[in-house]
């Protein structure tokens, strides 16, 4: 077993060897380095052919038409293009947008920008399991609502929103529906033929493709219009100008092709590993899973070890790459807004760790992390005045803390 162990697959993934190999063939003189937009010679034609094949692979994973795929630089750009693109195109219809408090910053900050431009945004709460209450969603709709944006899978707690049901409500109310699928592609079945979703953002580097590469699905029937955010040579049917990055596109295509082929087997394997991890920890005192454990992707386990601060625990797990919802991991000193939104008290948010498993995670690694965690949580609790108080039967909520 090699140390340190990577348990942060939701942050990013390594590029699959098979993907890297294909990408390398699109760079040098003896490879396909041409500009896919060059129409007058074989260098361009070959590059265009590879980009087209990649487009088919991406479309195939989500059962869409390749003409519905727009290449971007990542899910962040896809979210920006979708949300600003719709808002700017349809502003005469209305200026109200609905989204959710647990969205990724790429959605939330884009909405904040639109608020500065005069749009109105409703940020919905989620239930304590991290999922949206459909009635509350319906109640938030207004006559001037033009767009709703709801993520498919949450990046911190891994819960899966019911986008089919939410999309249905949007259809009934003629509201355009955007879904951030950065964390769901290759992990959850996505069938654009049956899902009432108009726009969906994807990223390559979350499923073993390269960073800096993504796509936006833009539905053709019924057609969704967008105002371009990047102007120039009119690439991607005018929606996103810029010379196509053949190697990146080929990488994303290959990553999506492999995901389609291996998703079912990989999900079963990851679920077994995740269960092994949780089963190895759940008998400990004061350990909580954050977010719904059933409606959740296989590779995510987000847990709070009460009375142990998350960053100190990460420091103890120095042979492992994990992430924490603790304030200390950010400059803001605010604990995770996602854990806050599911109603976790701040002290549990500070005590949270996110383990995300992936293609290269092994049973041996899981067993290693279980034994490390058990040992280090005990050590840190022995250091924790809160643990002493808990053990002495003191209700920590009844204590007057000297806030600072």
């Amino acid at each position, binding site marked *: 077993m090699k140390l340190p162990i990577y348990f942060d697959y939701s942050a990013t993934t390594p590029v699959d060897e098979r993907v890297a190999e294909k990408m390398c063939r699109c760079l040098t003189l003896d490879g396909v380095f041409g500009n896919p937009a060059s129409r007058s010679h074989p260098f361009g034609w070959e590059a265009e052919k590879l980009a087209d094949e990649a487009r088919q692979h991406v479309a195939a994973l989500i059962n869409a038409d390749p003409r519905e795929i727009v290449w971007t630089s990542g899910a962040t750009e896809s979210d920006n293009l979708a949300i600003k693109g719709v808002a700017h195109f349809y502003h005469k219809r209305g200026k109200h947008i609905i989204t959710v408090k647990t969205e990724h910053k790429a959605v939330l900050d884009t909405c904040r920008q639109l608020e500065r431009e005069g749009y109105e945004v409703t940020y919905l709460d989620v239930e304590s399991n991290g999922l949206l209450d459909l009635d509350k969603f319906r109640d938030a709709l207004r006559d001037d609502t033009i767009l709703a944006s709801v993520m498919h899978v949450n990046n911190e707690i891994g819960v899966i929103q019911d986008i089919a049901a939410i999309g249905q409500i949007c259809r009934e109310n003629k509201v355009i529906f955007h879904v951030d699928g950065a964390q769901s592609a290759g992990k959850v079945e996505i069938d654009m033929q049956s899902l009432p979703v108009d726009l969906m953002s994807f990223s390559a580097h979350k499923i073993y493709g390269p960073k800096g590469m993504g796509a936006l699905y833009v539905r053709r029937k019924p057609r969704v219009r967008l105002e371009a955010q990047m102007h120039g040579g009119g690439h991607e049917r005018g929606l996103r100008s810029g010379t196509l990055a053949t190697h990146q596109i080929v990488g994303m295509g290959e990553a999506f092709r492999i995901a389609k082929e291996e998703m079912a087997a990989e999900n079963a394997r990851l679920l077994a590993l995740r269960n092994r991890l949780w089963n190895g920890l759940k008998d400990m005192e004061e350990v909580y899973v954050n977010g719904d454990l059933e409606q959740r992707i296989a590779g995510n386990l987000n847990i709070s070890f009460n009375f142990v601060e998350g960053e*100190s625990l990460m420091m103890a797990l120095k042979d492992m790459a994990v992430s924490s919802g603790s304030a200390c991991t950010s*400059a803001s000193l605010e604990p995770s807004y996602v854990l806050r939104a599911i109603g976790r008290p701040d002290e549990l948010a500070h005590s949270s760790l996110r383990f995300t498993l992936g293609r290269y995670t092994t049973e041996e690694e899981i067993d290693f992390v279980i034994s490390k965690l058990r040992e280090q949580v005990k050590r840190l609790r022995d250091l924790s005045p809160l643990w002493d108080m808990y053990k002495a039967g003191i209700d920590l909520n009844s204590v007057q*803390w000297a806030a600072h």
Partner: protein
Amino acid sequence: MAYSDKVIDHYENPRNVGQMDDAAKNVGTGMVGAPACGDVMRLQIEVGDDGVIKDAKFKTYGCGSAIASSSLLTEWVKGKTLEEAQQIKNTDIAEELALPPVKVHCSVLAEDAIKAAIEDFSSKQG
């Protein structure tokens, strides 16, 4: 975030971890911070008749820098008079541990903890 060697040393081998009898007249207890803020320090000092700190113990819930700040503090206060201990500045702790700016609040908390412990001790002498 990269930690300094001193922070790592105190974190991995914390000095003077423990608990003293709250109620004892010669013990002063300072508990500062809040669970919701991500750090709570409990610092206790045992003071001799001569006004010198004979022993110090701590327990801390918080990040590595908070644990290191309180561990270092227990080492520093031992053998000091109350007046000397009162003079310890958070900047001294931050400097000794090479804390980055986002972690300076940990050293502030440690300074608050020793002040609170001294105050608690003094109030018991009445």
